[in-house]
């Protein structure tokens, strides 16, 4: 069984994230890492690998040179091999172009299961898994908070806005998992050493039969006109509760703002 996990290399959410002069995300000037939400997808793939025979987990990323770090971390966790689609013309691609590149790479890899995180921690659109299911023409089992593989059937628990659903589909499928699906493992020392010897391939767009005109900032399907830092909030009054004074001051404040 072949599992392809799509991962993204993102600017660290705890760092000072910002935009470049062309309104694209600065991916060089800020420390990057494997998107936390993709670790859950790697984990689910590894759990299937742990339980089954003959399961191979390939980690796929599209991104700048440093994005290799995201693959390496996944290999350290236990994935078997990595594929990095690296091509200058991809920079600035939106979700539509990114999903095209991913889908073509996935087709080339042969797959039974494609696993994704629920969203990236930078763009956080959360649409790429659905777009992949659409492009690949396979069942999209998205936003799974519990995943079960039963023969050829994948079953998920999906916590929707108004109901909790059980959804199933037959392999091959595209799966996306939430941060409720189970804590991701840390790389062990053995895992870190082993990762150094695992195969990591780099593909360009021409390897995938995608033309540069189909991707990148200049052909994006949507365009950012302006970015603006939100003015920092100014801290209001902070009081210390002494003998119940805190509650009284709090209600006074709420009443002064007409919340009571």
């Amino acid at each position, binding site marked *: 069984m072949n599992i392809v996990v799509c991962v993204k290399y993102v600017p660290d*959410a*705890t760092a000072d*994230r*910002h935009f470049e002069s062309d309104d694209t995300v600065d991916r060089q000037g800020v420390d990057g890492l494997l998107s936390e*939400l993709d670790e859950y997808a790697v984990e689910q793939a590894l759990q299937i690998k742990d339980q089954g025979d003959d399961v191979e987990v390939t980690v796929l990323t599209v991104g700048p040179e440093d994005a290799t770090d995201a693959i390496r971390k996944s290999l350290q966790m236990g994935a078997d091999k990595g594929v990095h689609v690296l091509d200058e013309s991809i920079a600035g691609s*939106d979700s539509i172009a990114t999903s095209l590149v991913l889908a073509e790479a996935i087709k080339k890899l042969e797959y039974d299961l494609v696993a994704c995180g*629920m969203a990236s921690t930078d763009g*956080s*659109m*959360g*649409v790429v898994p*659905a*777009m992949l*299911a*659409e*492009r690949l023409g396979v*069942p*999209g*089992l*998205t*936003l799974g*908070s519990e995943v079960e593989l039963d023969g050829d059937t994948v079953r998920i628990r*999906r*916590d929707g*806005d*108004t*109901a*909790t659903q*059980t*959804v*199933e*589909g*037959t392999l091959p*499928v595209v799966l996306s998992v939430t*941060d409720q699906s189970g804590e991701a493992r840390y790389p062990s020392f053995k895992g870190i050493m082993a990762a150094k010897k695992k195969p990591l391939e780099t593909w360009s767009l021409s390897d995938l039969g995608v033309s540069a005109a189909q991707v990148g900032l200049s052909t994006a*399907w*949507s*365009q950012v*006109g302006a*970015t*603006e*830092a*939100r003015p920092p*909030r100014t*801290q*209001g*009054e*902070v*009081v210390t*509760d002494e003998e*119940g004074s*805190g*509650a*009284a001051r*709090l*209600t006074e*404040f*709420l009443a002064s*703002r007409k919340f*009571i």
Partner: protein
Amino acid sequence: MSEILVLVDHVDGAVTKPTTELLTIARRLGDPSAVFIGDLEDTAVEALKRFGAEKIYVVDDSDFRDFLVAPKAEVMAHLVEKASPAAVLISSGGEGKEIAGRLAIKTASGLITDAVEVQRYDDEAPVCTQSVFAGNYTVQARVTQGTPIITVKPNSATPEQVDGAGTQEQVEVTISEGAKTARIIASEPRKSSGRPDLTEAAIVVAGGRGTGGNFEPVEDFADALGAAVGASRAVVDSGWYPHSFQIGQTGKTVSPQLYVAAGISGAIQHRAGMQTSKTIVAINKDEEAPLFELVDFGVVGDLHKVLPAATEEVKKRKG
């Protein structure tokens, strides 16, 4: 004027508030046409008309209601082709964004998600405002190809009542077999807490690790204020409160008039879900809690003492 398609979000036929917000936004851009997938009842027709729907496309889903997302995207693609709308508006949420993503691929159109404001831009694609990087930046973006497909966050507009003609049109769509592959085999409706919906509430009271798992003070204070209850991720991960109440990057984003955070330190992932609240109040034992940097008013103290006392005080003032 061009049509603006609005995908109606409904719970067992009842039109949700975010849908009325979408209709209000649609009116700024053109003529709102509601797309209702399911069993349309008179109350829903009235609600859609009252918020300005000129047309209501009705699609019977008995053939595909047991399948996830993909069939609805096919319905929307069919209507985009039929009506050539100037834009498509869908409520942001797990399902809404997935429908939008698939629709963008199907119709070769640009997509903008999680808009917090949508403005008319002459007769071209509307300008959408998004709040990104945990709410630290605002971005203005427009779709440049195809039909603008825009998902809009709840609370992005105040619903306005304007009479719409609400002309109904039954639409027959044949859903492909390929769209009927992710089968919903069970569905358990979530129990209602009896409190306002988290994403729609004017006031939210949220509890964090500082509650120690005891949410009673948080719930009581919320009830006194008529507020919704929320929780931090630490609380949900500890199993103290259900995930559907989680506020933050991987939970709900809220932007109420008043946000009260009790025992929440305020990690970036949490701030991402509440930073755009109009007024922020925090109660925390730790005066170093980063959330205090954002507050309009803060109390350094034990929430288990401050909240019950404040609850009594609020009740007294309200009489």
